[in-house]
């Protein structure tokens, strides 16, 4: 690891002051003064020499470790609450079971005890080329090229790609948050603002080194969940190379609001397919009013995947995504798996 200096923030305001000098960086991932909490991804990337901050500001002592009710009937998850404490919280389990399930599908028990909710959103892709400083990567070294495009791309994206980057976002939690329409609360020098989760992560385009819309001089303080948690008919399903402790090849957070056998509202967020959790609101809207049957869900999967494109090693993901979507909707609707 390269050398760096270390300091501690004793309030959100002092943390914002500590990172004020980052303002020229295009987003938080590119900041030279980095906030650190769980450290599970940042320190690993520093060991790999992929991230080279000159200073770390330890924010683990800030009072952002609680879950609170919001005026709108939802929950506000503290940014520094651990993933484990969040997933096992009784309110989260009862009202947002797919979020709890998604968090517990990610990482290991040790990592979930360290990793925080804010940090989970900011974790970076596990693309092999991003991690390997001996290879080109437009995310790590803008303009150097993409090693994955014509390299080993089995784990890579099938939707929303650009010729500059085909990396996928690794988070499970963020996929469930996308399906729930959560909001990320952040504080910067100008005060607080709210970023809808769908606008928090971004597609690579021609600037794949920019992961999020979180500015380099802002800190995440919490994540707000709306009142609607789809507790009765929702699930998180993750397909991966081993039974546990592996990143998703394909994952799906699905939620249904049913009126008898008719779909009133449907949500689907996919993980492992793109540079951000993938939603297709037109395909979701087309499910409204349809019967909650396999045929409806198959049609929905076809619509979501109509523009999916495979590369040399990951074309299997398109069929796998179709199966995962169908199975997840069957589970959420209470149908027997086909």
């Amino acid at each position: 690891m390269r050398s760096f200096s270390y300091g501690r923030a004793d309030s959100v305001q002092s943390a914002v002051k500590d990172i004020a000098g980052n303002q020229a960086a295009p987003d938080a991932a590119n900041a030279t003064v980095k906030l650190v909490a769980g450290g599970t991804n940042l320190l690993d990337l520093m060991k790999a020499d992929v991230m080279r901050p000159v200073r770390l500001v330890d924010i683990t002592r800030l009072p952002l470790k609680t879950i609170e009710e919001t005026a709108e009937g939802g929950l506000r998850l503290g940014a520094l609450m651990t993933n484990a404490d969040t997933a096992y919280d009784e309110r989260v389990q009862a009202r947002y079971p797919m979020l709890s399930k998604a968090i517990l599908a990610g990482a290991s028990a040790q990592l979930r005890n360290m990793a925080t909710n804010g940090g989970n959103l900011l974790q970076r892709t596990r693309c092999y080329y991003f991690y390997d400083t001996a290879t080109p990567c437009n995310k790590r070294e803008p303009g150097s090229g993409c090693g994955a495009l014509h390299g080993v791309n089995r784990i890579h994206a099938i939707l929303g790609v650009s010729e500059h980057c085909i990396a996928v976002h690794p988070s499970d939690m963020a996929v469930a948050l996308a399906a729930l329409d959560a909001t990320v609360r952040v504080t910067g020098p100008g005060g607080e603002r709210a970023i809808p989760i769908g606008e928090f992560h971004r597609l690579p385009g021609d600037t794949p080194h920019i992961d999020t819309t979180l500015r380099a001089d802002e800190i995440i303080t919490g994540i707000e969940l709306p009142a609607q948690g789809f507790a009765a008919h929702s699930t998180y399903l993750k397909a991966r190379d081993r039974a546990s402790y592996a990143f998703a090849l394909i994952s799906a957070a699905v939620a249904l609001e049913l009126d008898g056998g008719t779909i009133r509202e449907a949500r689907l967020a996919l993980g492992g397919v793109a540079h951000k959790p993938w939603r297709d609101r037109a395909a979701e809207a087309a499910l409204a009013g349809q019967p909650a049957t396999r045929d409806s869900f198959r049609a929905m999967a076809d619509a979501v995947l109509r523009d999916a494109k495979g590369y040399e090693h990951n074309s299997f993901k398109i069929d796998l995504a179709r199966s995962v979507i169908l199975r997840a909707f069957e589970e959420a609707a209470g149908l027997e798996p086909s």
Partner: protein
Amino acid sequence: MPDTITDRVPHAPDTLAITLTVNGVERTLNLAPWTTLLDTLRLHLDLTGTKKGCDHGQCGACTVLVDGKRINSCLSLAVMQEGKEITTVEGLARGEQLHPMQEAFIEHDAFQCGYCTPGQICSAVGLLSEGKAKSADDVRELMSGNICRCGAYPNIVAAIEQVLGGDRR
């Protein structure tokens, strides 16, 4: 302290004085901020029970308990653990009395080469206090952060199940 790396290597100019509580003993060290908790235990405190496997949070060999919760010590900076109670495999026994998890690992021959064992045992002790594992499947899922290259998994699960089913401490 005997001859440790702290005595042998000249201090970088920007070391920090850090006080850690490890296995109930308070220790003050001068450490560079980038020193991980794992390296601190092994190189500065001579507590070599905690193992370095992958050093990337993928194998679990470095698992220790911080305030009773299991974490990967390779992915944590020592300076961030000031004021916390750190327990390593050396701190589990009470004098000559092994922790029930240590006894169960011996009874079930839950290791071959033994390199992953301190991490497996610390992780299993953390698992017990979390109270979420109710079945062998739960144990397998919640112990997935600890890799055993010798493949002693069936015996590891059996050892943990025995302690889960018996007296917890």
